[in-house]
């Protein structure tokens, strides 16, 4: 079997007596469009935080492109090709949109520690950032401080920064969260047009977005994988409906 893009092997996390992730086996194929769903408190955020390295698992392993990254820190995981966006926009708020993207590209190209040549003379970085902004229709905002943009556009800047890192795997943590419904269509368009070679895992509450975007869906409930399958299988699954319609799950 070819190496997966991202994989977890019996991943567990508990805070004292509280188990928030219980032996999660998860596999993200190269180029996949995968969604992770589950009710509030299912452990989605904990799972993502373990993938990105924000918190350490209690046991189990995480593999990126077949390599064990369980002990690798957050920034080093990013440099190995694991990109992410945040549920709540996490940006350089007072910096222009261009700088938000350029800072990431500079890190990727190991230019960020150079101290002599002015940043604005690093044409290769600026050109790449501008091209990226163009693909997201953000060109006209390049010089605007991020904090002056409407929230929907800020969500796009999140995605732009992540893409600038040229990740092999991209984790999108609720990309449409907090976006007014008339703008969420734009987010979906952008998601649909992302390069096919990036494996994408999207964590989302918006079922409409999930079912239109994902080819595979994993349902997480109480720290465990309840079921994984194609969207039509998930939609037809009785247990998933029970969870989401709030019916008794003690069966």
């Amino acid at each position, binding site marked *: 079997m070819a190496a997966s893009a991202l994989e977890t092997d019996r991943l567990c996390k508990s805070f004292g007596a509280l188990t928030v992730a219980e032996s999660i086996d998860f596999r993200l194929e190269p180029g996949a469009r995968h969604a992770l769903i589950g009710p509030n408190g299912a452990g989605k955020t904990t799972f993502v935080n373990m993938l990105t390295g924000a918190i350490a698992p209690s046991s189990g392993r995480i593999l990126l492109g077949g390599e064990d990254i369980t002990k690798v820190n957050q920034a080093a995981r*990013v440099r190995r090709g694991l990109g992410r966006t945040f549920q709540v926009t996490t940006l350089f708020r007072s910096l*222009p949109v261009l*700088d938000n993207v350029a800072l990431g590209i500079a*890190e990727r190209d190991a230019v*960020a520690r150079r101290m002599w040549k002015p940043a604005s003379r690093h044409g290769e970085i600026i050109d790449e950032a501008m091209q990226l902004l163009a693909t997201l229709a953000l060109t006209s905002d390049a010089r605007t401080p991020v904090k002056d943009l409407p929230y929907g556009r800020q969500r796009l800047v999140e995605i732009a920064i992540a893409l600038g*890192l040229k990740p092999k795997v991209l984790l999108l943590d609720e990309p449409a969260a907090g976006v007014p419904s008339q703008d969420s269509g734009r987010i979906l368009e952008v998601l649909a047009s992302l390069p096919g070679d990036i494996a994408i895992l999207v964590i989302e509450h918006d079922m409409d977005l999930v079912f239109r975007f994902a080819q595979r869906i994993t349902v997480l409930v109480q720290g465990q994988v309840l079921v994984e399958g194609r969207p039509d299988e998930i939609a037809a699954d009785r247990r998933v409906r029970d969870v989401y319609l709030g019916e008794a799950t003690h069966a």
Partner: protein
Amino acid sequence: MSGYTVDPRIRWTEWLPWVAAIAFFFTLPEYLSLGARILIYILFALSLDLILGYAGIITLGHSAFFGLGAYTAGVLSARYGLTDPFLQLLAAAAAAALLGIATGAVILRTKALTLLMLTLAITSILLEIANKATWLTGGADGLSGVKTDPILGMFKFDIFGKTAFIYCLFALFIGWLVVRRMIYSPFGAMLTGLRENTARMHAIGAPVYWRLVLVYTISATMAGVAGALLTQVNQFVGLNVLGLEPSGDLLVMLILGGVGRLYGAFVGPVVYLIAQDYLAKQYPEYWYFGIGVLLIVVVLFARGGILGIIDKWLQALSRQTGSAKASAR
């Protein structure tokens, strides 16, 4: 002032401080000692601005590096007979850099109040060491008998402070060039990223902790050089270069001038030290009161410091002239 969208060319206004310094040299020869002190504090404030204004590292202990630099130059000269001015600077820079990397590596894992207290603790410890190790530092009496050779073998430190002023001006000019270059570089843009959002920096793959240690060490080195300059100019080192007080004074100077604007580090020390000089002569017992009032006024009415107010005025002025032009049509 930094980043990928700003024009890095030197504007004509940026030459004003240097013109002013040269004018000062020729017109106010009786104040050259004060002038040299101001230049040294500008260099010291620049080093603080790099970590506080750009990288967002909050500190009350920057005098640790200034003081270590001052004592390194002083002790090497008075106790070990090293009188070459550049070797003194070099030794002070090296000592401050070592302290910067050693303490930075420990304390930069923390932030906010914890970090503030740790920086304060470090300079307080150094103050206590300098106070107790009288055989080396002269303790509370200070270390006198510091000698420095003529600069380049030609320019002797004179009692009027002419050599001292020009020497410090050159040192500051080099410091300014380096810091300015750094701020406009990708490294400088990265520093503003550290200040703005460390979570985001982690997420773009930046080794945040090591970057903080790096910029902290660079800043410490500069502060050490500034301290050594003070020793060379005064031919004396006292305990007042260490501890909370000089750190606090420096912080006040930078806030007065404007934090994170490069030239705030120029304006602050000028205003502070001239006010101090004047007030100390007029009201020897209450001069701190005047400084306090100045600080309160700036913090209440001008959050960006003195340069912040000037910026606002200029903006208002250009809007007015802009609308005047528009209505004239």
